[in-house]
């Protein structure tokens, strides 16, 4: 069975995580999502947006295993993996104070899961004020620094104070939390057959896509060295390519995480990379990919 992609949505109380998840649920990605909620909020996941029995939400509680003797979040992930019909994608809404990395790490340890990114939502109106609260600032900083992508909510223009606060913690690029199209593109795995057969690249004001559909065989060593030096700006990359030693490699790059697995069969070969329009240079990707020639 294919590993189940897992993404974690982090961010402080009231940042807009649930709103964002509701919008993801309503999107036209065609994926069946399961959502684990580890947060309490004023808004609930809108059950009207859950379209089938395999789409659902499960509420969980906070706390580390030594204090709660439970680890119920992880066991809930295990329950989803045991289902006869798995969803296409698992989203975990982290609690307002949780470190999303500690949750997302299970996607790297559990072979039945695949890491599919940490998205941290920043409250565009209150982030600077929250960061000034020394009781919680270290945990908020950790949420931001582990993120593969930052989404800023509640503001459509670049607020000066917010921009300065973000720059102080070395965050220079982010998406608007309302830009569900771009966020979906980064959170959900691209579907190679559909993407590669598109007559022309999809255009979007915020992100760019680069793809190639006639990959040459790689040795594992070549592939690892190539993947270790991806050009800047790639938020997500997926590749299915022939293994020079027989069979295929499947490659997923999400932010800083690179996962290479061997597989025996593959229907569609190709590679696709996605990044922000402001950060990803298509030509650089082209040159990088062809550098092993």
């Amino acid at each position: 069975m294919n590993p189940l992609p897992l993404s974690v949505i982090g961010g402080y109380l009231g940042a807009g995580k649930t709103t964002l998840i509701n919008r993801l649920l309503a999107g036209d990605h065609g994926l069946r999502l399961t959502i684990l909620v580890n947060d309490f909020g004023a808004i609930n996941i809108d059950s009207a947006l859950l379209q089938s029995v395999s789409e659902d939400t499960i509420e969980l509680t906070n706390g580390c295993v030594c204090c709660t003797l439970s680890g119920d979040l992880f066991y809930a992930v295990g329950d989803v993996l045991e289902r006869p019909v798995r969803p296409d994608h698992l989203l975990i809404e982290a609690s307002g104070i949780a470190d999303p990395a500690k949750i997302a790490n299970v996607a790297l340890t559990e072979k039945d899961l695949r890491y599919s990114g940490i998205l941290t939502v920043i409250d565009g109106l209150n982030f600077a004020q929250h960061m000034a609260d020394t009781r919680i600032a270290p945990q908020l900083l950790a949420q931001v620094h582990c993120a593969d992508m930052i989404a800023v909510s509640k503001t459509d223009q670049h607020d000066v104070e917010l921009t300065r606060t973000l720059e102080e913690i070395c965050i220079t690029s982010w998406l608007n939390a309302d830009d569900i199209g771009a966020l979906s593109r980064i959170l959900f795995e691209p579907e190679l057959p559909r993407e590669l057969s598109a007559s022309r690249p999809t255009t979007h004001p915020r992100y760019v896509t680069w793809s190639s559909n006639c990959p040459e065989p790689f040795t594992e060593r070549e592939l690892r060295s190539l993947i270790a030096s991806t050009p800047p700006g790639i938020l997500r990359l997926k590749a299915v390519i022939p293994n020079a030693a027989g069979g295929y490699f499947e490659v997923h790059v999400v932010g800083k995480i690179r996962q290479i697995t061997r597989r025996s069969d593959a229907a569609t070969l190709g590679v696709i990379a996605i990044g922000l329009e402001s950060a990803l240079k298509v030509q650089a990707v082209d040159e990088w990919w062809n550098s092993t020639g």
Partner: protein
Amino acid sequence: MTDIQVIKARKILTMDRAVPDATHVAIKDGRILAVGDASCAEQWGSFTIDDSLSEAVLLPGFVEGHAHLMAGSIWDHSYVGYHDRTDPQGTFWPGISSTDEVVKRLKGVADHAPDGAPVFGWGFDPIFFSSERLSRKHLDMVSPDRPVAVLFSNFHLMCANSAALELAGYSEDTLAEGVVKGEDGAPTGELQEMAAMFPVLRRINIDFRSLSQSEAALESYAKTAVRAGVTTITDLLSMMQDEDLDQMLSVTGRHEYPLRLVPAIAASGNPAQIAERALNLRGKSTDKLRLGAVKVMTDGSIQGWTARVRWPGYVGGQPNGLWNTAPDEIFAIADELHSRGVQMHIHVNGDEAAEVCLDALEAAARQSPWPAARHVLQHCQMMDRALYRRAAELGVACNVFANHIWYFGDQHAAFTIGLDRARRMDAVRTAIDEGVSCAIHSDAPVTPLGPLFTAWCAVNRQTMSGITLGEAECITVAEALELITLGAARTLKLDSEIGSISPGKRADFAIIGDDPFAVDKTQLKDIPVLGTVFGGQINLI
């Protein structure tokens, strides 16, 4: 025929100042009819005398205000901890003080287990000895082909053998935080934190949830309680689901089930939902299953450096700990639950967490008057006199983690908060002096269930190295006995029904082998527990 039964004992310590000492207690319909001497029941008609306990001493049934249901069922697996322990069946497990002994004990288990069955050890605590770090290689000696895993006592670390690592798919290719690699690039077997432990736990069928929620777990919990003289116990972070309720009602409803269970459900969902659920559960309470309270997590643990502590912080310069619930959330939960009349048990280890929670409870109290709320701060390990005074002013009860002094006191002095603050940790003397309604607890299975041991800790404040840590915070034997009976009952708002041997209360007693006032206070923990009387029914171990 008579339905009045009189139990005769060598001595009965009632915790009721009207009749502090007695030799006979009369019971009718599971409740205490009268207490005094052989004639105490005469005014009530004919009775029969049961003298099977005439050599024993009776105390009110002990009340454990902070424990977890897992304390019983964890014994389904092999104990490999440093301290001597006794399991629910009464089997004695000597403590383990080297890696070799771990291997030897687990090998003994493996040799008798069905083919391929996993072997799971728990409670491992290498902090107390200096042999080689436990690794895959050691556990491969337990068995080269069946999965073997050892969970550390702190629940944050586990070690697995090669077969277990292979089940999870861990290899030199695994690139994940928490899967520790050796110099050869292969996993050493050590797995840090739940994300790394979970893929192994899942494949060897260790589900913490079923350890905390199953018929067998409820039965083991009761056995563990009887051995400790406990007749009322909490499950202080219950993950019970709606479908679990029927099972709990059915098991606790059995006539012979010798325990009153008080679960506090985990605060999950938004505050209004939590309140709704707690109030709904409260309406389903029975005598032996008391529902309706909520547990709120706030910070982590001091020995894990995750407790939120005030300035000057940890002596090693570690960053201040972690909130599991943000201060803003604590305020929101406190406000809603207080206004809806739901009692909260609030986990606070560090003093900053205690302060934030008192702030939140004070704000809630300003919004909605409820003088009898009796919310309880749990653990309270770093609370000082000023914080206890605030708790007393607010009517907030404090259940103090007295066992920590023995188990972790030396570590706290050396590594976490330093000797000065360690001497005022778990400051029961101060809490009592400030007029706080207080209790003391074990947090079983974190430390073993045993109220007499917990009382000994609060009386003697002795650490494992033998020093007295903070003599000024020691309490008397009489005070300690009150804290493990009436004191704990008060934190559960059950002090009108249990906690003393008084006419009208439930006939719940601890049966012990000696008079706690007749032995030296340093021997309090060594008094044997012989069993309990629950609702008039004698349960000897």
